[in-house]
Every structure is written in C-alpha cells, then in structure tokens.
C-alpha cells in the first residue's frame, strides 16, 4: 500500500527516540568529552616515550644510545647525541647513554618502527593525545626529561607487552647473575691452592626460567 514505507520509517525513528531514553546503551552512543572518555584499546598508540627502571630517570634509563631508532625512523624525527662516559645497565654491563634524546612530535607519524627495532626495550608507544600547545616549535619538541617515564607507566598502558618484557629481562638478569657467580667460582681456585668446597663439589647452575609463550 502506498505510504506504508513512510509508516515503517516513522516507527523506526520513534524506536530510536524512545530507545534513547529507555535503552541508552544501544540507542544513545554519545560520549560527552571531556567529562567522559572512551577507553582506548591496549594497542592504541600516539607518540613514543623512553622507559626507565626504578625511580631515577637518569640512572635507570634503558636506552644505550645505539642510534638504531634514529636511523630507522622514516621522517627522521629522532635526534640523539651519545654520551662520553658510560654507566652500568640492569645486568651490570657498562653502556653509553643518550646525553640528548629529542623527538619532534610535529614530524613523528606514529609508525612505531622505533619500537619495533629497539633491541633494549627502551622506547615504547604512549597513548596521550591531548598535547595541544600554542608553541609549534618548542612546545612540540619533546626532550629526554619529558620523554622518560617509569616502567610502571608502561605496565599500566600495555600490560601484555610489559609482562613479556619484564619476564624476559628477569631471565636475562638471572642468567647474568649465574654467569657472574660461575665466573667468581672459577676464579677462586686460581688464587687459593686449597680445594674449596665449591671446586670439589661443583653446583649445577640453577634452571633458567623460560619466558612464557
């Protein structure tokens, strides 16, 4: 019958209207920013940040200034100056560190290549997007002090990735400690002629925990 389409349409819009009051979860999808915010998925990314372990951003910084991310960055927005001195990393090895580490956010395209190529889990993606500033030069040039964030921040943003990284680094730390202990044990008989209990009864190395699959 002519006009039945119009009546079906009117019924649908009436359902929308009434449903926006009675069932807002289905029929009223507005999120009133900035009072309400959408929960972002774990994989969402905005701009990179540098991870540091512990509480001191200078001493705990994971970055060893290998400059791989600087070379791999497609728009070349990372600027690194290597330090002259070295500092110990989490396994105790002496490493360089970045004296200057700048990322130009107006150039960065959030491709995440720097994160993918970093061998030291030092640079990861942040999720903050409310970065509007009235200074388009200095306001969008993030230096090392602004980029460095604690590991707890990384764990909060990306729990899955952080668990995997932490387990792997704990395993590496254990391996390094075991190697150090073995080296210390092997060094001892060279200095003392009396056989020590450690040399005559060598302990098997403790089992290294495997990272979770």
């Amino acid at each position, binding site marked *: *019958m*002519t*006009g039945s389409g*119009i009546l079906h*349409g*009117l019924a*649908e*819009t*009436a359902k*929308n*209207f009434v449903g*926006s*009051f009675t069932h807002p979860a289905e*029929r*009223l*999808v*507005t999120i*009133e920013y900035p009072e309400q915010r959408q929960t972002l998925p774990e994989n969402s990314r905005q701009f990179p940040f540098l991870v540091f372990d512990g509480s001191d951003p200078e001493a705990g910084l994971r970055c060893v200034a290998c400059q791989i991310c600087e070379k791999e960055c497609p728009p070349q927005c990372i600027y690194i100056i290597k330090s002259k001195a070295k500092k110990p990393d989490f396994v105790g090895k002496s490493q360089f560190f970045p004296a200057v580490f700048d990322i130009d956010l107006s150039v960065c395209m959030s491709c995440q290549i720097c994160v993918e190529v970093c061998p030291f889990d030092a640079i990861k993606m942040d999720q903050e997007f409310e970065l509007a500033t009235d200074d388009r030069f200095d306001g969008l040039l993030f230096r090392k002090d602004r980029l460095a964030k604690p590991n707890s921040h990384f764990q909060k943003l990306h729990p899955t990735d952080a668990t995997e990284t932490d387990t792997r680094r704990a395993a590496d730390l254990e391996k390094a400690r075991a190697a150090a202990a073995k080296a210390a044990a092997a060094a001892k008989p060279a200095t003392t002629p009396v056989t020590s209990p450690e040399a005559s009864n060598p302990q098997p190395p403790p089992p290294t925990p495997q990272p979770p699959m």
Partner: protein
Amino acid sequence: MPSLDQLPLYLKDQIVALFPTPLQPWVGALIAIGTLCALFPALFAFTTVLERKTLARIQNRLGPNRVGPAGFLQFAADGIKSLTKEDIVPRNADRVVHFLAPFVVVVPPLLALAVLPIGRNLVALDLKETGLLYFFAVGASVEVGVFMAGWSGGNKYSLLGAMRALAQLISYELPLILSALTVVMLTGSLSLVSMVEKQSSVNFGGLYSWNVFTPWGALGFLLFLTAAAAEANRSPFDLPEAESEIIAGYFTEYSGFKFALFFLGEYLGLFAVCGLGITLFLGGWLPPFTWLNWVPSWLWFFGKLMCLIFFFVWLRGTLPRLRMDQLMQFAWQFLFPLTLINAFVAGVWHFTASWNFALRWALGAGLLALAYTLLSRPFTQAFPRRTYRFAP
C-alpha cells in the same frame, strides 16, 4: 474570581478598564497584539531547541546540552550570535528590496495568527464573515517576500532558489485551500470561531465531534498537514533552503539578524498553519472528551500545537528530501485530485446525515480508499519491487 480558562480575558478586561473610554478599544487591541508578539516568538525560541534535541535523539545522539538547564537556553546563544554578525549587503543588490524582504516574511504570519481562536472567547481578531479567507490571503503574502529575497540578492543562484521555492509554494496552496474548503462547506461559514463551535456537539461517550473523526476529516487533515509542511518549507519539502542543494537558496545573501528574521518567519508560518489545522480539523480549543473540560481551553490549543510540531520534527528526522520534479508531481497528480474527491465525499457525508453512523463511515472511507489506491498507482508502478537475477 474567573476560571483559569478565562483568566487571560479577565486580565485584559481589568487593564482596559483602567483607561478612559475613548482609548479603550485601542488599548484592547494593543494588548492583543502585544500578547501575540510576545507569545509566539517565545514559542519559536522554545521550538528551535526542542527541534534540535528531538532530531538528535532520533539520530542516537544528544542535542545541545551545554547552555542553560539541559541546553534550553541555546536560543539565547543563537540569538546573540546572529545579532553580532556583520550585516553584509552585496554590491549588486537592490538595497531597498533587500532590506524589506525579511519583514515581508515575518509580518504576515503574525497577522494570520491573530484570527486563530486560541481559547474559549480568546481570539485577537474575530472576523465573522471572512476569517479563513483573510488567513489564506495573508499567508500567501509570504510568497512575495520569498521572491523579494531571491531577487534582491543580485545572485542568479538565489534567484533560481526563489523561483523553485515559489513554484513549490504556489503548487501546494491548492491542496491546502481545497482541504480547508471541505470544512467551510460543512460549517457553512468562513468564521474560524464558528468552525470550532460547530465541532462542539457531543457524541456517544462524551466525545466531541472533531472534524478529524469523520472520513473526509481524517483524510482532509492528512492532506492539510502535507500541504502545510510544503508551505512552511519543512522537510521533506525543504529543497528551497537545503544546505547541500543550493547553499541557502533564496536567503543566500543574508547574514546576521536578517537571516534570523527569515528563520523566525518560517517557524511563525509553521505555527500559523498548524494552528489553522487544529482549528479546522482538531476542534480548536475543545478537549476530546467532555469530562476533560476542567483543563483550560488555551492549554488544549497549545498542547495540540506542540503535538503537531513534534510530529513535523519527527517527519523531518525520518524522511529524505523530495526532488523538485517529485514534489510538483506529488502536488498536482496526487494531492490535488484527492482533495477534489475529498470535497465530494464531504458532500456525500452531509447528505447522508440521517443514515446509521457506521454505514456513513464505511461509505465515506470506502470511496476515499478507492480514490487513494487508484491515484497512487502511477507512483507504485513506476518503481516496482526490485528483483535481483543472481541473488537468492
């Protein structure tokens, strides 16, 4: 102490009595004019926000909700915005006509609102012999304003928009007037007050005999509403002013306050023609049942007006826009013949006054259904149900 129903009239009489006798008619007229000029623009302000919020809810979103409680002071923000915008008049424009066009669009609807009976004994202008004729004459004056607006811009596109708007307005005047004609036929008078009084006879169960409860009244009301939507440039007939079609059509060259005046004129026209529909078909200020008479009559009128406005907003949120040729075809090949047949069926209703009520109703409804089906066949046959050769 007067009843709530007669309170406005009582207040007016009290104020008029304070003045000396030679001045009293003038004061009475001024009070009526002042009330209309205050009431309907206030209703316009409320309607703009209500429309935006209702459309939003239909579209699964919130409407304006920042200015004022639940966003109901949005009209104030819009008004201040339109007042502070620069008033640009193009170099090639006809300055006098450009200045006068908004007023020619705003003033006639206010004139038309004056003859509508808003409540029992509450009509600003009681024209006993020419009420309806005056309403249509004044309502048609808006079309001159539309043409003035399109012409004075000095812009061929706004002139085109004005031509299209004018074609639409003139085409839909006929179904509008002819569907009102049936009510005049059966009332025997052009006076709007007597039309409401004619609908005040009571049927079984205390039901007032509104014209919409008859077969010719029901279809006539639907035809009237359709033609009214086209007269007020409401969706789905808003081609003349659609943003995506012709920028702003005939008011492209207007900015700031004059644009706001066009907006006001359009909504006032909508109120006027809805008010007329209520007076003609929905029993004006009468309640549906006699036992609801304790609610004031003016409250019934405005309640029905708000219901009709809500229905127009609902229609706007549902239907897509009609193309110009579809619009004209609809008016001339469907609505116009249907209104003529409706007038015939109204005559049949009048001459079968002594018949059984159900039989009368069946005869009238049957004739109208037959006419409706036959007239709509060209539209349905042109677009048959789509079949797909390879789809299941």
